[in-house]
């Protein structure tokens, strides 16, 4: 490989976009070529500027506290080389009594070094396996969370299908208002029992502390509160509800944004509404 061939590899390397085999090849070359090393440093500095393409964001204040507390509590057992040797200094073997033959002193020193190396290796291995364990257990937790979420979603879907198949149900389409033009929803209810279900799509994710609330508006009367709900990233939610007896004759259905605990009468902006009858 010619020296100039490495230029392209250096760019890709700076972006960590090299295949493993090219990466090895380049790293071997970097060992030998100071010119490419300089180039590599500058390209990496450049690539790191891409971080600025993301929008700066403020983490919660407690993250700072957590980091400083952990640093203070020694959670980060320090691994800097300088520090290690400084700490080791007091344990450096003193000059052995003259009576010790040189060979014994050498053997003792070697044994001591071997012991230190052994301790370091064990300690590092231990740190690594602990990290691996915690990573695995985190993964396991995530998977089991996902599984239980999937199960709950499946149960809800079954319930919804059974409901949709029951005889005598009515369907009301809700359209997004000016506030949420792309949102829409379908409200399905059983006039006899009042069992109802609302399926939304395209609603914006509610801000923290807020939730959507369903309203049943019997003709010529004030809105009656239904359940509150939140939506997933796609703006979707399926909510089972109970339609009050007074509101089972061609009600208007609406959805507003309210405090999470719900409101007795609507206070926030209207996001969805069925055509008023």
């Amino acid at each position, binding site marked *: 490989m010619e020296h100039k061939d490495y230029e392209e590899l250096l*760019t890709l390397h700076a972006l960590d976009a090299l295949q493993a085999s090219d990466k090895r090849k380049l790293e071997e070359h970097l060992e030998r070529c100071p010119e490419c090393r300089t180039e590599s440093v500058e390209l990496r500095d450049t690539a790191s500027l891409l971080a600025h393409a993301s929008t700066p964001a403020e983490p919660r204040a407690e*993250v700072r506290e957590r980091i400083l507390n952990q640093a203070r509590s020694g959670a980060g057992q320090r691994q800097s080389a*300088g520090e290690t040797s400084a700490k080791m200094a007091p344990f450096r073997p003193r000059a052995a009594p003259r009576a010790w033959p040189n060979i014994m002193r050498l053997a003792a020193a070697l044994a001591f070094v071997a012991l230190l190396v052994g301790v370091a290796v064990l300690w590092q291995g231990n740190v690594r396996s602990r990290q691996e364990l915690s990573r695995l257990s985190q993964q396991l937790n995530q998977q089991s969370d996902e599984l239980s979420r999937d199960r709950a979603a499946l149960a809800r879907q079954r319930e919804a299908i059974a409901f949709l198949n029951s005889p005598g149900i009515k369907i009301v389409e809700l359209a997004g208002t000016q506030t949420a033009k792309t949102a829409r929803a379908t409200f399905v209810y059983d006039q006899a029992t009042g069992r109802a279900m609302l399926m939304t799509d395209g609603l914006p994710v509610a801000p923290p502390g807020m939730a959507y609330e369903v309203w049943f508006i019997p003709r010529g009367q004030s809105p009656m509160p239904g359940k509150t709900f939140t939506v997933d990233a796609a703006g979707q939610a399926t909510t089972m509800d109970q339609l009050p007896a007074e509101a089972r004759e061609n009600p208007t259905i609406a959805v507003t944004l309210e405090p999470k605990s719900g409101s007795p009468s609507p206070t926030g902006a209207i996001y969805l509404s069925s055509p008023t009858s």
Partner: protein
Amino acid sequence: MQAQPSEVSDNELLRLVAHGDEQALAVIYDRYRLILFGLILRILHDRQEAEDVLQEAFLQVWRRAGDFDESRGRAFTWLVTIARSRALDRLRGLGSRAKHTDEVVAHSLRGETGDAAADALQSEQGRIVRQALAELPEEQRRTLLLAYFEGLTQSEIAARLGDPLGTVKTRMRSGLMKLREVLRQESRGL
């Protein structure tokens, strides 16, 4: 520390951190939390995961500051590299849940020059870089951002965009060279 935090260089701060100075760690955190959290959040799209990773990254800074070698790059590069690798590791760990490619691409296409609120948080350097990115041909920008924020290799990017590998390599090189020019001008000018 004697000097005002704003006067202490990043390199000096990292040396202090390497000697166990927690206050220096706090200064680095305050100086870079916005950009690093923004970066991690852009990769993970989940605030809680991102805060976790930010914490991990800073604890790594705390433990490994002694490894920082200023002859091998700027302190900013060292910090950003830690944050990005941690975030990409987490992204791979999350596996299928993190399939948000379209969103990332859409985000990058919405333009990197950003809105007014975000600009208020941007450093001067950030503004210059965003401006330079905005001036790159769209394909170059997109290729760079895919590599950077999704951690894709050259062949993965080629497969993703349906472009020949050679084209992808050329775009990455041209894009990065243009950015380097910006960095050079900046170090002369600022």
